[in-house]
């Protein structure tokens, strides 16, 4: 058996992944274990989990692969800071510290963490890791691969042509066709506006997407002065409006505030619009609508740019299949448009298209491209994290003196829960292995009845303690998805991972208002093969309500990683207004 451990870290969302003969058998982000959101440190805990899950502690893996080339990245950092001197002195000092203390010793650190000699540590460049993370996990034997992210070594955007059969005939290749270099980056453009809109970079990008739906793109022209798009899909950033190329703390320059005519949003300022908060003070509403319009404009320019990039990827490759990766591929609206508005017929996006996913990509690249082993793996589900047995769950419950009952019969468990959900109870649902990637897909989820319009505000304010404008996603039985949204045939796997925002059928909007975000939904399609227990729960809920849909949001509180262990779940349960907690077969009530 060939065992390859992939690792990503030192930027954000550190992660580890293990492949055995090219099959991903374990993958997890470090934050789930360390409980530090977006933890970027060397993922020692995630590495230990991956190795333990396959009994490979103590040097059992053949190779450890890092998801980028540190020295190339260092050259870019130094060249960029030199090019922006003397404004970059603070950034240089911080970078010098980080490289001196940690990053330059990555080979030795990885060798020590995995228990292998240093010569078994390999390096794959950042965008190749991204491209491999999507193509080599896809069901396609050839595809155009579009990677759009912040930055790796130098590249920020790449188009590649990939091929590799499942019958082992011929080489598996990922051939780079086009690239764009730092600082001209769609990911960093979006992050700069995320900061302008008062959210944390590398965390609040989803909030910009959610906020955009409340506005109209009336600042599109102004935003296009900061990002110039070309007919061939490439683009250029006017650096006068940005600061990320010379600063670690600032993403945008004061010129951006002058361009838009308003200072950046204060993160502590409540967000209000006329439609959502009719009673809010007028000035607050005016400002809220201004920022929503900026968000809508940024979202529109981003989507248009992704569509143009996808057109170019199609023109260059002629493929019918599109694989997306990079942090920008978490933008479900852009993904859906890239499929709908280009000649591509099918799309694949892995559940962790961002930097964490580079860990899987680097491992699969070594396995199939460098070692030349044939492909056999398609990522059909995202349940690659740690699981806990019923005995371990009971130990945690008894240790916390929780009162619970065990329902061993799955049918009865699902029927009982469906009844509670129908009665309006909000349930913490903890089952099996945790999800790979930022979305909770029915194993570490908070579930509720999507028919109740008031559920959105209740969960945002009383349970997750987050902004009231944040939308919720519907989990839908796969067999019924086509009757709720359009465009599913081409996107079956990405829809399992909540990576597409699609228009809700008009006739369904009144039925499930709690997951209707201005006529769209970032749905999860639930299949019996990928998650049988969650599928059964949805079936039970449908039997009672005629609605094969549940509101599904991640099981965490604002600012915290998604729960990983039974103790995390119990702690979250204790600090929120969740009505019920289900851990495996154990039903915990207050």
């Amino acid at each position, binding site marked *: 058996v060939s065992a390859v451990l992939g690792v990503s870290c030192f930027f954000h969302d550190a992660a580890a992944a293990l492949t055995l003969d090219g099959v991903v058998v374990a993958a997890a982000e470090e934050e789930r274990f360390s409980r530090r959101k977006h933890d970027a440190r060397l993922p020692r805990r995630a590495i230990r989990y991956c190795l333990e899950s396959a009994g490979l502690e103590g040097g059992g893996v053949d190779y450890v692969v890092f998801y980028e080339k540190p*020295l190339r990245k260092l050259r870019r950092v130094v*060249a960029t800071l030199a090019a922006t001197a003397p404004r970059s002195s603070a950034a240089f000092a911080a970078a010098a510290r980080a490289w001196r203390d940690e990053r330059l010793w990555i080979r030795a650190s990885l060798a020590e963490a995995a228990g292998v000699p240093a010569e078994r540590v390999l390096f*794959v460049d950042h965008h190749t890791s991204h491209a491999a993370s999507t193509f080599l996990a896809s069901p396609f034997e050839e595809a155009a691969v579009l990677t759009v992210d912040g930055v790796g070594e130098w590249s920020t955007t790449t188009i590649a042509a990939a091929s590799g059969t499942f019958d082992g005939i011929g080489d598996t290749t990922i051939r*780079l066709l086009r*690239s764009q270099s*730092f*600082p001209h980056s769609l990911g960093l453009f979006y992050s700069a506006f995320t900061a302008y809109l008062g959210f944390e970079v590398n965390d609040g990008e989803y909030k910009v997407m959610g906020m955009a739906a409340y506005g109209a793109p009336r600042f599109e022209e102004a935003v296009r002065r900061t990002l110039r798009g070309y007919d*061939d899909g490439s683009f*250029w950033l006017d*650096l006068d409006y940005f600061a990320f190329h010379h600063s670690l703390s600032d993403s945008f320059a004061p010129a951006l505030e002058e361009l838009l005519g308003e200072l950046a949003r204060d993160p502590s300022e409540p967000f209000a619009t006329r439609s959502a908060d009719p009673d809010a003070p007028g000035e607050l509403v005016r400002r809220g609508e201004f920022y929503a319009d900026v968000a809508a404009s940024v979202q529109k320019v981003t989507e248009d740019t992704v569509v143009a990039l996808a057109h170019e990827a199609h023109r260059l490759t002629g493929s019918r299949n599109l694989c997306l990766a990079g942090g920008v591929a978490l933008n479900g609206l852009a993904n859906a448009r890239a499929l709908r508005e280009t000649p591509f017929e099918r799309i694949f996006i892995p559940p962790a298209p961002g930097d964490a996913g580079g860990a899987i990509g680097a491992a699969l690249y070594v396995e199939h491209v460098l070692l030349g082993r044939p492909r056999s793996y398609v990522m059909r589900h995202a349940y690659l994290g740690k699981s806990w047995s019923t005995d371990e769950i009971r130990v945690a419950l008894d240790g916390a003196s929780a009162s619970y009952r065990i329902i061993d019969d799955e049918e009865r468990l699902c029927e009982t829960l469906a009844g509670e959900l129908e009665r309006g109870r909000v349930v913490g649902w903890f089952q099996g292995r945790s999800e790979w990637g930022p979305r909770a897909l029915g194993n570490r989820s908070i579930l509720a009845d999507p028919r109740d319009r008031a559920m959105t505000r209740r969960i945002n304010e009383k349970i997750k303690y987050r902004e009231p404008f944040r939308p919720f996603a519907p989990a839908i039985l796969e067999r019924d998805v086509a009757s709720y949204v359009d465009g599913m045939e081409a996107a079956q796997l990405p829809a399992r991972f909540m990576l597409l925002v699609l228009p809700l059928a008009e006739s369904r909007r009144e039925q499930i208002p709690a997951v209707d975000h201005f006529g769209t939904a970032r749905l999860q399609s639930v299949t019996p093969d990928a998650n049988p227990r969650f599928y059964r729960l949805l079936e039970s809920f449908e039997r009672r309500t005629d609605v094969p849909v549940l509101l599904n949001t991640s099981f965490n509180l604002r600012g915290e990683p998604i729960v990983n262990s039974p103790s995390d779940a119990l702690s979250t349960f204790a600090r929120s207004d969740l009505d019920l907690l289900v851990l495996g077969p154990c039903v915990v009530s207050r």
Partner: protein
Amino acid sequence: MARPALLSRLVYFLIVTPAGLASRLVTDPLHRHAPASSNWIVAGSSPPPDGARLRQPW
């Protein structure tokens, strides 16, 4: 800790800053000026370097 911080300042102001200023006189390393029609870098094929597929530079 004071010594490494001083060293990094010295490196920055004595080496990095002059090198950066000099490079800006002759090149546009960050492509501050908008290209006329495209910002793509066209790549050739990328074969594994010198046959040593697993010993690629880091």
